[in-house]
C-alpha cells in the first residue's frame, strides 16, 4: 500500500467536504454547543446558591472517586464541589461523543456519498488499491473529527478556566491528566473503531442517510460510558482510560484488517 495514494484520497475528499455545508454544519454545531454551552451551564450553577442537596446528586459519583480526590473535595465549598465534579467528571465523556458524531457523518459520506453523487465508478476504475481507498476514506473521517475534538476541548478548557479561575483561587481545573488521556488517547482509538465500522457500513448500503442511521448505533457504547460515569458506576480515571485505549486499539486492528479484506469494488458498484 502506498500511503501517498491514501493521502491523495483524503485531500480530494477534504476539499469536497470543506465546500459542503450539509456535511460541515452538523460536525461543527455539536462541538460548539459542547464547548460553549456547557461552560455556561457551569457558570450558572456556580453562581446559583448551592445547597447541600446539590452535592448529594453527585454522592454516588463522589464515593467512587479515588481517595486523594475525595480528600481534595472535602476541603471545598458546596459550589466548588458542584463545579469541580461537573467539569472534571460529568462533562468529560462528552468529548468522546464529539469525534464519534463527526466521524459518523463523515464516514457515512465516504463510499455511500460517492455512490449517491454517482462519482464512485470513476474512482473505483483508477489504479488505487483497495487498501489505499479504504485508508484514504478513514483518514478523511478521522483527521477532521480529531481536529474538531481537540479544538472544542481547547475552547472548553479555556472557557472553564476563565470562569472558575477566581472561584478556585487561581487553580486551573483543565487540562488535567484524565482529560488529556481521554482526548489524545481514548478519543482517537474509539473514533478509529467507529470510523472503520462506519466506512464498512457505508460501502455496503445504498445511500448516505442509510449509512448514517446505522452508524449512529455505534454511539450506544459511548453513551453507556457517559451514563456509567454520571451515575458513579465507572469512573473514567487514568487506569480505566488506559484499559479502554488497549481494548479499542485491538478492536481497531481487527476492524481495519477485516475492512480491507471484505472491501469489494464490485459490491460497492452493484449497490448503485
Amino acid at each position: 500500500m502506498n500511503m501517498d495514494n491514501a493521502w491523495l484520497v483524503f485531500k480530494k475528499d477534504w476539499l469536497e467536504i470543506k465546500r459542503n455545508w450539509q456535511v460541515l454544519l452538523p460536525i461543527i454545531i455539536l462541538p460548539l454547543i459542547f464547548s460553549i454551552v456547557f461552560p455556561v451551564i457551569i457558570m450558572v450553577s456556580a453562581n446559583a446558591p448551592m445547597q447541600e442537596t446539590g452535592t448529594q446528586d453527585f454522592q454516588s459519583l463522589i464515593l467512587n472517586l479515588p481517595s486523594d480526590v475525595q480528600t481534595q473535595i472535602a476541603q471545598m465549598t458546596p459550589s466548588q464541589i458542584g463545579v469541580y465534579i461537573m467539569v472534571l467528571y460529568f462533562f468529560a465523556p462528552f468529548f468522546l461523543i464529539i469525534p464519534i458524531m463527526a466521524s459518523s457523518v463523515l464516514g457515512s459520506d465516504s463510499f455511500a456519498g460517492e455512490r449517491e453523487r454517482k462519482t464512485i465508478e470513476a474512482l473505483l476504475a483508477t489504479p488505487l488499491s483497495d487498501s489505499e481507498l479504504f485508508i484514504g476514506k478513514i483518514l478523511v473521517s478521522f483527521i477532521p473529527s480529531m481536529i474538531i475534538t481537540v479544538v472544542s476541548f481547547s475552547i472548553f478548557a479555556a472557557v472553564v478556566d476563565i470562569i472558575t479561575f477566581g472561584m478556585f483561587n487561581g487553580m486551573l481545573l483543565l487540562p488535567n491528566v484524565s482529560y488529556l488521556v481521554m482526548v489524545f488517547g481514548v478519543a482517537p482509538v474509539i473514533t478509529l473503531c467507529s470510523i472503520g465500522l462506519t466506512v464498512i457500513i457505508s460501502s455496503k448500503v445504498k445511500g448516505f442517510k442509510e449509512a448514517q442511521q446505522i452508524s449512529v448505533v455505534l454511539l450506544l457504547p459511548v453513551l453507556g460510558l457517559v451514563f456509567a460515569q454520571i451515575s458513579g458506576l465507572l469512573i473514567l480515571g487514568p487506569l480505566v482510560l488506559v484499559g479502554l485505549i488497549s481494548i479499542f486499539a485491538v478492536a481497531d486492528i481487527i476492524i481495519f484488517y477485516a475492512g480491507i479484506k471484505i472491501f469489494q469494488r464490485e459490491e460497492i458498484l452493484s449497490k448503485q
Partner: protein
Amino acid sequence: MIDTENLTRKFDNLIAVENLNLHIEKGEVFGFLGPNGAGKTTTIRMLACLITPTKGSAMVAGYNIIKDPLKVRQSAGILTENPSLYERLTAYENMDFFAQAYGINSITVRQSRIQELLEFFHLWERRNDRVGGFSKGMKQKLAIVRAIVHKPPVLFLDEPTAGLDPESAKEIRDMITKLSQHEKSTILLSTHHLEDAEKLCRRVLIMDKGRCLLVGTPDELRKKISTTPAIEVVLTKVTPEILAAIETNKKALEINQQGTRLLINVEDTHVATPEIVREIVEKKGQILSVNAVRPSLEDAYLKLVKGEEIS
C-alpha cells in the same frame, strides 16, 4: 490490444454477457451497438476491471483482467455511464486528482498535461470553475478529457453522447475523432446511437441480450443484412400508365407506391435504373429525384435486434 475469450457475466439468473469473443486492433475505434440491457456496460465494466467475469477472460493492453487488474486500470481510461466528476471541485482539481490517482506524480508533468488537454478541448478558460456549474455537454467533455489524462493506450467510452442535445453530441463525436487522431488510443465505445457508430467506428459489434449478433465494418453489416436492392423514384404525379410500364419491365421485381414516391425492388440498380427512368419519361412522367436505396446501419441494427434472419 483487446482480446476476449468466452467472456461471460451472470447476475443471479440473468446472463448479462454470454461467451463474448472479440479482437480489437491497436488504434482501432470499435463500437458496441445495442439497445438498453444488451450487455454493453457490463462488458466495459469487465474490461475495465470494475467487475469480474463469471466465466472466460480478456486481455487489455497486454494484461489479463483477472490476474493483473491494477495494470489494466493503469493502461485504460474510462468514461463511465455518468460523468463521475466531483461537482464541488473545479475542472482543474478534478483533473489533478485523477492525474495523481493514475500515477502522474511530477507536478510539472501533471500541470503541462492538464493544460495541454484542457486547451486542446477548449476547457482551459473554465479550469477554475466548479464542475457543478457546467452544462451536461461540458461535463461529458471534461469526463472524457479526465479519462485520457494518463495517456492510456486503451480508452473505454460508455455511451459518450447519451442524453446530450444534438449540438453537444456532435461536439463529443468531433472530440472522439480528434482524440483517436491526437492520442492514437484504441477506443471502445458503447452506444445505442447509430450515428455515433457509423461516424466514429471502424468496426461495430451489434449485441443484444448479452449475445454478439454480428461484428464488422458498417459497410459489411449493411451488406450482410441487405435484401433486394431498390430504386426510389419521386415524381410530380404517378399515373396508371407509368405504373403499368414499370410493372411490365422484367427488371422491376416489386413496386411499392407511397403517394408520388415509388420504391422499386430490382436485381441490380446499375442496370435497372436507366431503363426504368427511360420508361417513366416516355410515359410523360416528371421525375423529381432518383436514388439507389442502400440499407442503413439503422436497418441492419433494427433487423438484428428484432431477431430477423440475416441473408
